[in-house]
């Protein structure tokens, strides 16, 4: 099914430019596997990059640059083996499969709260923010929270709803500092999402803030 919710055009353009951190980039790359429309947008964004590259005033190369590159070509090792196929879990888009390197059913979840588990995909200093999987039990209401930067949430399984609509597999919810929301997972199944944030969440409840201090969410 074609996704109904996408990263914003600003986010797609910044991904094409190479300006998104690794965590946000992984969410975008994974959404692209679900969404031909956004793939076309990325191609347009990269065309902007190509045009801007060609428009730059050339910088003189070193005197021996041509020789050095010809030498690289001359001593070229046989082409590296093709990237191994991504892990077999058919529910995971390839870019995410490479990061997880295991099936979704084999994730070592850690409990975050009642009905709520998480798994850190990248240590948060590396992700320039957070990159984690969140597993939400059916019908669970998350604490109301705001954001300090852009947050991208890709649904992998199940669904959730908030004031912006209902989000199913392949959909991306993008929120930022202008949005405070309280997502609720739908009642039929566990909802599993990939979430990347640029900055810490801002919880309204003091208890949620205390949990945050211990879990780094």
């Amino acid at each position: 099914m074609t996704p109904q919710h996408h990263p914003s055009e600003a986010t797609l353009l910044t991904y094409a430019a190479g300006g998104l951190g690794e965590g946000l980039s992984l969410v975008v790359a994974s959404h692209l596997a679900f969404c031909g429309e956004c793939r076309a947008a990325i191609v347009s964004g990269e065309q902007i990059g190509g045009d801007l590259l060609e428009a730059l005033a050339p910088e003189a190369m070193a005197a021996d640059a041509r020789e050095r590159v010809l030498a690289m070509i001359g001593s070229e090792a046989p082409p590296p083996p093709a990237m191994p196929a991504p892990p077999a879990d058919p529910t995971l888009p390839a870019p995410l499969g490479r990061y997880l390197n295991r099936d979704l059913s084999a994730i070592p979840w850690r409990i975050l709260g009642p009905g709520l588990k998480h798994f850190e995909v990248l240590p948060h200093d590396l992700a320039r923010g957070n990159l984690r999987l969140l597993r939400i039990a059916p019908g669970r209401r998350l604490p109301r929270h705001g954001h300090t930067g852009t947050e991208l949430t890709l649904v992998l399984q199940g669904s959730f709803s908030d004031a912006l609509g209902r989000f199913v597999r392949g959909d991306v919810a993008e929120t930022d500092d202008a949005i405070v929301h309280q997502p609720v997972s739908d009642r039929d199944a566990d909802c599993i999402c990939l979430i990347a944030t640029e900055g810490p969440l801002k919880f309204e409840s003091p208890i949620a803030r205390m949990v945050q201090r211990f879990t780094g969410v």
Partner: protein
Amino acid sequence: MDFAVPFGAGALRWGGAALFGRWAMMIPRADAAAAPPMFAHLLRAIVERRDQASFMTLFDYYAPRVKAYLKRLGAADSVAEDLSQDVMFAVWRKAASYDPAKAGVGTWIFTIARNLRIDALRRERRPELEPDDPRLAPDPAPMPDEEAEASQEVAHIRAALRALPEDQAKVVTMAFYDGKSHGEIAAELALPLGTVKSRLRLAFRRVRGLLGDHAA
């Protein structure tokens, strides 16, 4: 596709005509005489015959521009020099993966330079779509005359970029030439994040031809 941006909407209305004049400072105008020739056949010669002369033609045109791009993004001269040689070596090695139906040679080389820079200078991985991912949802059905329009599209993008209002051109160049995220752009320009995002969105729509030529 985008969410409501309370700060942005107002900013757009005054973004149009008044600021239109100084775009030339933002996005360099490629000299018409130096417009890149059709380079796709050079890549084909590399794939078919390992033709070094074709490669060197590409090298002479693109290596100095890749170096300029890397320096714009803050790399020191020696780092930009080495990395632009690496980018061109990758062009040689990956020539077979170039798909002329998808993008121009400059666009393809831009993606190689962008990704190598992220790997080498930001020390991060660059997650990318994998075109042969068996899980890939199919592309939307192409328009019947889409292919014929590819070169027109490139020309349109080029013209539209240079016609962007200054506030939009500014955020586009900060994203591409300075490698900045929305948050970094917002901090540097002392603007709300929502304003930066809506300027990027408008610029992108305009360049993609999704806005009428006279829309703000």
